[in-house]
C-alpha cells in the first residue's frame, strides 16, 4: 500500500448525504466485526459505539479522521486481513466506511472544534514560512507576519482572502505542497507544516480570518501571596550583628554570626592554622597557585600585626586573582571554546574575548551590577558599536561580555542541526545558564509544566524565555557564524595589517608573475592557432583562458601551478580579521508562545517578555522595557536593570553565596543554584542577609567581600577535625573548622607549573592549542616560555585535556554551578605515569639544582618549600636525602645505554632528584589544601 500524503479535508460542512455512524456504519460493524470486537473485545478494540471505536485498542487509534491511509481499520478490511474467515466486507460497505472517515468525521470535528484564533495561525506561519517571508527576507515581496502584510500579499497578489481558503495563496500553496519548497526548506532548516496545522489555517481563513486579540493577563492566580512570602523571594533585611561570649575571636561581623550559632550548640572555632598553612590556603584560594619561595620568605619576614591582611591585599591586586576567579565565573557561564557538536566540535574563534573580559573585569573590581549588566545586555548599553569597525577595549569588552549568553552548545552552523527543536534547546539552555548562575532559581521544569515545588508557572518560564527570544529568534534564526561582528581595536587591526600587508604584496607579486607567464604563452598559442575553434586567438588573444593554455602546454601548466601553489601557501598565512562574538537582538522579534509540554510546535497562549511573577514585589521596581535605540528591544537591558536593584531578593544573596561556597567549601545556601522551596534552607540566614546587604552597601564590590571573608577568624581556622567535632558538626554547616580540600583541576595544573618553574605567565588572547596523541590522550605542549595557565588552554567539549578531565574539570552542559570532586584511580595513573608530570619533575629538578646546588639536604628543603610551602622537618630531610640516594644508585646502568655525551654521574644526580620531585608532586600533601 502506498503511503500518500493525507487527503486534505475537502468539506467542512456536514452534508445530508454523508453516512452517519448510527445509520450507516454501525450496521456494518454489527454484522461483520462486533462478534470479536464487542463486549469482550479482542485486542481491547470495541467497535460497538462511535466513541469506543475512536478510542481504539491495543494498537492505538484505528481511525484517523480524514485519512483512510492512516486508519488501521481500513487497512485491515481493505487488505482482507479482517474480518478473519470467509466473510469479508463488500466493496459497497468499504466505500461507506471510507466516506465516513474522509468526510463525516472531519466535518463533525470541524463543527465541534473551537474557533481558530489568529495567534495559533501566526505560530504556524512563524515556524513554517516566516524564514523567507518575514523580517530577514521578503521573498516575492511577501511578509507573512502581520494581518496587513498578509492581506497586501506579494508579487503574486494577496496571500490572504478572508473567508476563502482556496483563494488565499498562503493556504493554497501550503496545501498543494509547493510551499515551503522541499529543497529550500531543507537548506533553511524549515520543517513542513503538518496536516492538522494546515487544517487550522484553512479553518481560520474560512471563518473570516479574525485578527489578533489583545494579550490578556491570566485570570487565575497561579502565584499566591503566600508564595511570595518565602524567605528568598523577599528582599534581605540587614540583621543586627549578634553579641557573642567569645568576643575576642571576632575580626569582623562574619565571625559574630558564625560564633553565635556555634555557641548555641556549645561549640567554638577550631584553633588557628599555622602561618604558612594559612598562606598556602589563601594563595590557592585567591590566585589558584601556590606561592613562590621568594613570596614565602617575604611573608615570613613581615612580622607586623597586619602582615596577613597586607598579603590578602597583594593577592587581590594580583592579576592572577582575575585568572582564578575568572575560572569560577566561566564555570557559572558554561564557557567553552567549541560549539560542542559533531565530529569536528568546531572551535569558536573569538570566544576568548569573553574569557578575557571576565578576567579584566574581575581584576578591575568592576561593580557586580555593571558586571552582570554588561553580560546580559552589553549590546544594549550603547549603539556606538554599530557605527564603527574600530573600537576601544572598553567598547569591545562590553560587547564581548554578551558571550555570557552565548556559551551553550550550538550545532546550528549545520542546516541539518538547525531545526526548530535544536533552536529551542539552545534558548532553554541559555535560560538555564542565566537562572542558575545569577538568579539562583531552577526554572527548567517549568519548560514543560508548572513547577511542582516552586511558584513558577509555565507561563512565567516562557515570559523569561521571551526576554532572550528577541536575540534568539527561533523562527528567523542566526547560526553562530552569523553572530560575529566585524570589530576590533586599533591595535588588533594594525597587528593584522602589519602581518598581512607583506603577504598580500607577495601574493600580488606572484599574481603578476602568473599573468606574465600566461601572456607569454598566449602569444605562443595565437601563433600556433590552427584549428577553426582557435581562430579567435589570433584576433583576441586576451580571451585565451588559462585552462586552454594548460591543456595545450604541459610546461606552462607545471610552471603556472607551481606559482599558484606558492600563492595559496602565502594566502594560508594571512591572519583572519578579528571579530567579536556577540549576542544582539534581531531587528524584528517574533511572537512568543507558551509551548505545551515544551513541544516547540505545540503552541499555547501568547506571552509577553517578563520576569517570574513570584518575584514581582512591592519592594522592588517592576520589569519595564524601554527600547534603548532602534534595532534593540531593550528586553535584556530591562532584565539587567531589574536584577541589579539594590534590594532585589536574589541577586546579592546568590552572588555572596557563590563566593562563600568557594572560600568555605559549602554555600550558606548549600544548593547554590536553587534558593527556592526545593532547595535547602540557609545554614545561617542572618549571615547571608548581612553579607548581601553589606555587598550592596559597599558598591557591589567583589573584592571587598573576598577581603571580608578571607580575613575573618573563621577562615583562619585549622582544617584539623576531632571525632567529637565531626559528630557535632558533621557537614561543617556551622563552619566549626576549615575544610580539608583537594585542589580542583585547574589549581592543580597551575600549581604544578608554579612549583616546577614552568609557568608562562602571559595573559589573554587566543587560546593555547591542545594536541591529541596517537593514544588519544589530550595534552598541552609547552611553548617557548613554558605552559600558560589552564584558563588559557583551549577548552573543547569533545577533547578535554586528559589531566584536567581526570580531575573533574566539568564538561559544560550547559554550565556548572558547583564542582564535584572525585578521588579515583585514573587520577593516580595520570599523575604517576603521565608524560606531563614526569617532564615537569625533570624540569623542576634542574631548577632546584640551580637554586640549591648539589647539597641534598638543601635540595629537599627547596623542594618542600616549592611544593608544600613549608620547610621540612629533620625526619623529612633524612627521608628525602636517603630516597634521592636510593634513586641515584639505580640510574647509571640505565644511562649507560643512551648516547648522551653528558657526564653520567651528573645526569644520575639530576634524574634521581627528578624522581624525588615526581614523588612529591604525586603526594597527597601537594594536591590537598589544609
Amino acid at each position: 500500500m502506498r503511503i500518500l500524503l493525507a487527503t486534505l479535508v475537502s468539506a467542512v460542512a456536514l452534508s445530508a448525504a454523508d453516512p452517519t455512524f448510527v445509520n450507516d456504519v454501525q450496521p456494518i460493524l454489527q454484522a461483520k466485526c462486533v462478534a470479536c470486537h464487542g463486549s469482550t473485545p479482542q485486542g481491547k478494540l470495541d467497535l460497538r459505539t462511535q466513541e469506543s471505536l475512536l478510542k481504539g485498542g491495543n494498537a492505538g487509534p484505528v481511525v484517523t479522521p480524514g485519512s483512510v491511509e492512516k486508519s488501521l481499520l481500513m487497512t485491515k478490511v481493505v487488505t482482507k486481513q479482517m474480518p478473519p474467515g470467509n466473510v469479508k466486507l463488500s466493496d459497497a460497505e468499504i466505500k461507506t466506511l471510507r466516506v465516513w472517515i474522509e468526510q463525516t468525521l472531519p466535518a463533525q470535528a470541524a463543527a465541534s472544534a473551537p474557533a481558530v484564533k489568529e495567534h495559533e495561525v501566526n505560530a504556524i506561519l512563524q515556524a513554517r514560512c516566516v524564514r523567507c517571508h518575514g523580517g530577514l527576507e521578503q521573498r516575492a515581496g511577501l511578509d507573512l507576519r502581520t494581518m496587513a502584510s498578509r492581506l497586501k500579499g506579494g508579487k503574486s497578489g494577496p496571500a490572504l482572502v478572508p473567508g476563502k481558503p482556496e483563494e488565499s495563496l498562503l493556504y493554497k500553496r501550503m496545501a498543494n505542497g509547493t510551499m515551503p519548497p522541499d529543497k529550500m526548506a531543507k537548506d533553511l532548516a524549515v520543517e513542513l507544516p503538518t496536516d492538522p496545522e494546515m487544517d487550522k489555517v484553512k479553518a481560520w481563513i474560512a471563518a473570516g480570518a479574525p485578527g489578533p486579540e489583545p494579550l490578556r493577563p491570566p485570570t487565575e492566580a497561579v502565584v499566591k501571596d503566600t508564595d511570595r512570602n518565602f524567605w528568598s523571594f523577599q528582599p534581605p533585611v540587614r540583621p543586627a550583628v549578634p553579641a557573642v561570649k567569645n568576643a575576642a575571636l571576632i575580626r569582623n561581623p562574619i565571625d559574630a554570626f558564625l560564633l553565635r550559632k556555634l555557641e548555641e550548640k556549645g561549640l567554638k572555632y577550631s584553633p588557628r592554622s599555622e602561618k604558612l598553612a594559612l598562606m598556602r590556603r589563601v594563595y590557592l584560594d585567591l590566585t589558584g597557585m601556590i606561592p613562590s619561595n621568594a613570596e614565602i620568605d617575604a611573608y615570613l619576614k613581615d612580622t607586623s600585626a597586619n602582615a596577613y591582611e597586607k598579603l590578602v591585599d597583594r593577592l587581590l591586586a594580583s592579576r592572577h586573582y582575575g585568572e582564578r576567579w575568572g575560572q569560577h565565573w566561566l564555570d557559572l557561564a558554561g564557557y567553552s571554546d567549541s560549539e560542542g557538536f559533531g565530529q569536528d566540535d568546531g572551535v569558536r574563534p573569538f570566544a576568548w574575548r569573553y574569557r578575557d573580559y571576565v578576567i579584566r573585569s574581575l581584576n578591575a573590581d568592576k561593580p557586580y551590577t555593571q558586571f552582570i549588566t554588561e553580560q546580559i545586555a552589553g549590546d544594549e548599553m550603547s549603539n556606538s558599536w554599530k557605527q564603527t569597525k574600530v573600537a576601544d577595549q572598553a567598547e569591545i569588552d562590553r560587547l564581548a561580555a554578551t558571550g555570557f549568553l552565548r556559551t551553550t552548545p550550538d550545532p546550528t552552523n549545520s542546516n541539518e542541526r538547525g531545526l526548530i527543536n535544536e533552536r529551542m534547546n539552545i534558548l532553554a539552555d541559555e535560560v538555564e545558564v542565566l537562572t542558575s548562575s545569577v538568579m539562583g532559581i531552577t526554572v527548567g521544569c517549568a519548560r514543560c509544566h508548572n513547577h511542582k515545588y516552586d511558584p513558577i508557572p509555565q507561563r512565567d518560564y516562557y515570559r523569561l524565555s521571551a526576554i532572550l527570544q528577541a536575540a534568539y529568534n527561533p523562527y528567523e534564526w542566526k547560526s553562530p557564524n552569523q553572530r560575529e561582528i566585524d570589530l576590533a581595536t586599533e591595535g588588533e587591526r594594525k597587528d593584522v595589517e602589519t602581518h598581512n600587508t607583506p603577504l598580500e604584496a607577495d601574493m600580488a607579486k606572484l599574481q603578476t608573475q602568473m599573468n606574465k607567464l600566461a601572456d607569454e604563452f598566449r602569444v605562443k598559442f595565437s601563433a600556433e592557432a590552427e584549428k577553426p575553434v582557435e581562430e579567435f586567438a589570433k584576433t583576441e588573444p586576451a580571451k585565451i583562458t588559462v585552462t586552454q593554455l594548460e591543456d595545450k602546454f604541459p610546461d606552462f601548466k607545471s610552471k603556472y601551478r607551481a606559482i599558484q601553489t606558492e600563492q595559496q601557501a602565502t594566502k594560508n598565512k594571512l591572519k583572519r580579521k578579528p571579530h567579536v562574538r556577540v549576542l544582539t537582538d534581531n531587528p524584528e522579534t517574533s511572537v512568543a508562545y507558551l509551548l505545551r509540554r515544551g513541544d516547540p510546535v505545540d503552541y499555547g497562549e501568547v506571552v509577553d517578555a517578563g520576569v517570574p511573577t513570584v518575584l514581582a514585589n512591592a519592594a522592588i521596581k517592576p520589569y519595564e522595557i524601554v527600547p534603548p535605540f532602534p534595532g534593540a528591544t531593550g528586553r535584556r537591558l530591562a532584565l539587567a536593570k531589574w536584577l541589579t536593584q539594590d534590594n532585589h531578593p536574589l541577586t546579592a544573596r546568590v552572588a555572596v553565596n557563590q563566593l562563600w561556597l568557594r572560600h568555605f567549601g559549602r554555600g550558606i545556601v548549600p544548593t547554590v543554584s536553587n534558593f527556592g522551596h526545593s532547595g535547602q534552607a540557609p545554614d545561617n540566614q542572618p549571615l547571608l542577609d548581612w553579607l548581601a546587604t553589606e555587598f550592596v552597601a559597599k558598591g557591589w564590590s567583589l573584592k571587598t567581600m573576598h577581603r571580608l571573608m578571607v580575613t575573618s577568624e573563621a577562615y583562619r581556622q585549622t582544617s584539623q577535625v576531632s571525632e567529637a567535632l565531626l559528630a557535632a558538626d558533621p557537614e561543617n554547616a556551622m563552619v566549626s573548622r576549615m575544610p580539608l580540600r583537594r585542589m580542583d583541576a585547574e589549581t592543580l595544573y597551575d600549581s604544578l607549573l608554579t612549583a616546577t618553574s614552568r609557568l608562562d605567565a602571559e595573559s589573554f588572547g587566543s587560546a593555547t592549542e591542545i594536541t591529541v596523541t596517537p593514544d588519544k590522550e589530550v595534552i598541552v605542549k609547552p611553548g617557548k616560555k613554558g605552559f600558560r595557565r589552564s584558563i588559557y588552554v583551549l577548552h573543547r567539549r569533545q577533547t578535554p585535556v586528559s589531566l584536567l578531565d581526570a580531575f573533574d574539570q566539568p564538561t559544560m552542559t550547559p554550565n556548572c554551578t558547583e564542582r564535584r570532586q572525585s578521588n579515583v584511580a585514573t587520577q593516580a595513573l595520570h599523575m604517576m605515569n603521565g608524560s606531563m608530570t614526569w617532564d615537569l619533575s625533570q624540569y623542576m629538578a634542574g631548577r632546584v639544582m640551580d637554586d640549591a646546588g648539589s647539597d641534598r639536604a638543601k635540595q629537599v628543603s627547596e623542594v618542600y618549600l616549592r611544593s608544600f610551602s613549608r620547610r621540612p622537618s629533620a625526619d623529612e630531610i633524612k627521608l628525602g636525602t636517603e630516597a634521592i640516594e636510593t634513586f641515584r644508585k639505580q640510574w647509571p646502568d640505565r644511562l649507560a645505554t643512551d648516547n648522551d655525551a653528558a657526564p653520567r654521574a651528573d645526569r644520575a644526580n639530576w634524574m634521581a632528584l627528578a624522581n624525588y620531585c615526581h614523588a612529591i608532586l604525586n603526594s597527597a600533601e601537594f594536591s590537598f589544601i589544609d
Partner: protein
Amino acid sequence: MNNNRREFFSRIADGLHGTALMSLLGSDMYAAAPPVFDLKAKAPHFAPKAKSVIHLFMNGGPSQVDLFDPKPTLKRLAGTAPSRELSFAISNGKDAGVLFPSPFEFKNRGKSGIEISSALPHLAECADDIAVIRSMYGEHANHEPALFLMHTGRTIASRPAIGAWVAYGLGTENQNLPAYVVLDDPKGLPINGISNWQSAWLPPIYQGTRFRTEGAPVLNLESRPEIPTQLVEAERSLLRKLDDMHRVQRPYQPELDARISSYELAARMQLEASSALDVNQETEATREAYGLNDPVTASYGKRCLMARRLIERGVRFVQLYIESQIWDTHGNLSTDLPAACAKTDKPVAALVKDLKQRGLLDSTLVVWGGEFGRLPISQGAMKTAGRDHGPNGFTVWMAGGGLKRGVVHGATDDIGFKAAENKVSVHDFHATILHLLGMNHRELFLNRNGLQERLTDQYPARVVSEIIA
C-alpha cells in the same frame, strides 16, 4: 533527602572509608539512606532479571528492511515514486529515489520462525535466543542527535549516558575494574566521541572508562618507559611513606583517605585490567568461534570476547562500538551491508552462544542496535543505490537476562518506513533495560537543583513487558 550528607560522601570513590566513617558518626547516617556516590554493589529496586549488560552499539544505523523486517509490499511497489512525506525524509532531495525492496532473502529461522535475512547467517542460528523489536522510533535523522538520544534519552549533549545511570544505580561487583567499560574501535572514536559515555552531572566516577583493545587498556596504565622498574617501585615506596606521615596527622578526613587509596587501586587495576583483556588466556576453540583467526572478524571478535571476560569479572555495563559508521549504507547497499555484517555477525553470534553455553546469558542482557534505521527508498543512482537515515521505524534486538526467547514485538508500516504497531520509543527502550536490571526508571533519579533527574526524564516511558519472560 539530605544533599549535603550525600555530598559529604560523594567524593569518596572507593567506598571503603565511607563505611568506617558512617559507623563512627552513628546510625543516624543510615536513617535517610541517601544513595552514596560510590561504586559498591547496590541492591536494585526489585529482584533483577539481569545483572550486567553488553551493549553492542551498531554505529551508523543498520537497515531494518534488509536485516530483520521483511516487507513483501515493498517488493510489489518496487520502482514506484514515494509520497512527499517519504521523499522529504531524505536529507538531500536530489537523492530521493524510488521504493526499493531489499536485495536480501528473508527466511524463517529456528523453531521460533523469526525472519532474519541472508545477510546475517550466524545470528540466524541464534534466532530462538533473541527478542526482536521491530517498532523502535527515534526523533532525529542525523547521527549526532540520534546517538545522543539512544545513549542519554535526549538529542543534545547534556545528560548522562545509560551506562552511567546503571553504574550509579547498581555500582559494580569488582572494585578493581571500572563499573562501566567502553570498548571502542581502535580505528577511531564513534561520532560524538567520548560524549557517548559521559556522566554529565552524575559524578565522574560513573562515566564510561575506555579500555583500549590494543596496547595498555587504560591511558597511562603503564609506568613511564624511561623510568627503570626498580625506580618506579622505589618512588612508590617513598610516596607511601610521605602519604602515611601526612595522613597520620590528619585523622577523620575521608577525602584524603580516598585519595590515598586511589593510588592503591591504580596499582591493582594495572594487574586486573591487563588480565581481564588478555584474550590469549582463552582456548583456541573459543578464539576461533569469535573469529579471532580471520582478519575480517578479528577486531570486533576480540572486543566481543573481551566483553564476556569483563562481564565474568563483575563489570556492570560494557559497551562496544564499531569502526566509524559501517552501517551507514548510503550507497552500494548490496555490497556494503554484507561487508558490515561480515565484520560483526560471527562475533556477535559467538558471544550469544558462548554466554548461553556458560550459563551467563540468564544474568547478562545483550542489546544490539544502532541510532536509527534506514528508509525504504533508494538513495542515489539505482546501480549504486543505498538508503538514507530512517529514524521513524527501526529494529533492535535483545537477548538474555529475563527476556522471552525467539519473539518479535511490534511492526512498521507496510513498507517499513514508520513504526506502526506497538511502537517503542527510545524512552521505552531505556525503561525496559533498567527494568531487566531490577530498576524502576521512575525511581532511579538524582536530585539536582531541586529536580529529580532521570534517564527517562519526564517522558512517558513504558516497559516493553511483552518481551519479558
